[in-house]
């Protein structure tokens, strides 16, 4: 890893891959940048003209944009909190020896294999539906007023659905981290007089820090582009209550046929994602040294 010679040859051998990746990234990015500077509407073909930063001005001053920004952050933050917190709890549970462990572990992973569209539809029509849904039935059984999930708490509902999909991923990664903890370390802590909670805080959690970092980074990347769940449940509504930046770009491009505006939105989303990434790497990157 460290000698000068291995580093030089490593660089040489990586060059083709890096060049290919750069082209792969750079060409679409350049095209998007170019489109974002045009007045380009699919309803008026052949009328493209140079617009400078006008598209950006429209996109950034659109009141939906700020709502979208806030919704995106709430969605990402909410899902991260639920999936990491829940993942740790699930991992701790699954690490205990119990009957049928193998089968239960297998079933826990299942939600991860369900397509986002399908799972969102199942949640919408079978669980959260205010008339036919399981939750509504439960509420009525206990004599309560059923909740109209997508009407009363639309963003929360979507956070629930997306969390349900990502919980298995977090659980799985954290469970493997937990299992790699040396049992003698736990026993040493036990002999040192640490109770269950102290052992968790001082031994288990620091051991899992790296895995938690990986989960947060990977989930953030995917959560910034959550789309299908919004499309099939709320369509971004009511109003703009569940419109994220990603969804807003879609609205611009394919509902308003404004390619220029959508490109500008896409660029803004890329910039935002990078800000989040820098923030994250700064915040938790020290765990990955």
């Amino acid at each position, binding site marked *: 890893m460290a000698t000068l010679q291995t580093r030089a040859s490593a660089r040489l051998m990586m060059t083709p891959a890096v060049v290919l990746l750069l082209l792969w990234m750079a060409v679409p990015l350049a095209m998007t940048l170019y489109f974002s500077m045009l007045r380009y509407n699919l309803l008026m073909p052949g009328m493209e003209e140079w617009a400078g930063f006008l598209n950006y001005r429209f996109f950034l001053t659109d009141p939906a944009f700020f709502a979208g920004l806030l919704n995106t952050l709430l969605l990402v933050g909410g899902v991260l909190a639920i999936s990491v917190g829940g993942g740790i709890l699930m991992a701790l549970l699954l690490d205990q020896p119990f009957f049928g462990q193998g089968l239960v572990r297998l079933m826990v992973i299942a939600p991860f294999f369900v397509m986002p569209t399908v799972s969102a539809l199942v949640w919408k029509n079978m669980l959260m539906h205010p008339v036919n849904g399981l939750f509504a039935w439960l509420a009525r059984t206990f004599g309560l007023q059923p909740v109209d999930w997508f009407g009363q708490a639309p963003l929360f509902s979507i956070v629930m659905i997306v969390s349900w999909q990502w919980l298995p991923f977090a659980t799985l990664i954290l469970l493997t981290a937990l299992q790699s903890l*040396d049992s*003698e*370390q736990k*026993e*040493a*802590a*036990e*002999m*040192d*007089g*640490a109770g269950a909670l*102290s052992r968790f805080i*001082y*031994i288990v959690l*620091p*051991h899992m*820090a790296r895995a938690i970092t990986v989960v947060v980074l990977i989930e953030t990347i995917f959560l910034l582009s959550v789309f299908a769940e919004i499309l099939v449940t709320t369509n971004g509504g009511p109003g703009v209550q569940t419109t994220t930046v990603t969804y807003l770009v879609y609205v611009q491009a394919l509902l308003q046929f404004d390619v220029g505006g959508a490109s500008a939105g896409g660029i803004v989303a890329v910039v935002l994602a990078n800000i989040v990434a820098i923030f994250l790497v700064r915040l938790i990157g020290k765990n990955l040294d």
Partner: protein
Amino acid sequence: MGEIRLEKVHKAFGTTVVIPEIDLEIADNEFVVFVGPSGCGKSTLLRLIAGLEDTTSGRILIDGEDMTARAPAKRGLSMVFQSYALYPHMSVYNNIAFPLKMAGADKSVIEEKVRNAARILNLTDYLDRRPGQLSGGQRQRVAIGRAIVREPKAFLFDEPLSNLDAALRGAMRLEISELHHQLHTTMIYVTHDQIEAMTMADKIVVLNAGRIEQVGSPLELYRSPRNLFVAGFIGSPRMNFVQGPEAEKLGAATIGVRPEHLELSTGDGYWKGKVGVAEHLGSDTFLHVDVDGLGQVTARADGEIGLRHGETVFLTPIRERVHRFDDKGEAFS
């Protein structure tokens, strides 16, 4: 104080019985070594005493108090693990301070005790490092430091030196013996290395398949092993065992002679044989001799003996040093 007593301790994992039944007394301030071949239940016995495993039946008393059902932390014992089991994300200082912190000690008290332990163990310069940045011997010392700050009634060591190289093992052996003299605390030490057992122990407990074969001081075990197992296990190189007519001449089923109790001669002697491999250690030479009608016999000779492969040599056992065993493998005299 640190007097430990095991009464009819029995341990089984499911249907596999690991320890059939053990009675053992360990006096205060004693250095006791458990030896035995791999898988004989040494670690299990130590973990039973530590409280990391539950006894299936029987009692464990520490200072006369029944501790059988007590949690590990409440028994007042410290353990040093084979893998060191240091906390990798904590500095050396925090590793050593951890048991004190868990006990809710004052910051100033912790500081004083940690510095003191670090001084005893020559770790003062490394207190800010992480375990990953230490050598094997230093890690071992941190593990010992973490054990001594609690001022336990007894220390439990589970093969603490088996991950170290030979030179370091020798040095750490001395350090642990030295520590025992400084601290005046009971120590129970598990090893399968009989040299460690012989050099460090006040009392050796030889285990075989979960049973105690013999308990005694190193020299007692060396001089008068109770049976074939102990005779073969204690002493290096191994005792030579001879069966058949040669043994019957002395009225035994098996006789045993240690390599150092055979007299060598090129002229004449009791057994005649051909020199096979000769291991030159400098101070001693171990000769593997093919004796006619007996098979291989190991003999210790002077370091600078000039015997070569294939030469004829005569061996004479020193009569009063010959061990006799009956057909059940028990020693008699």
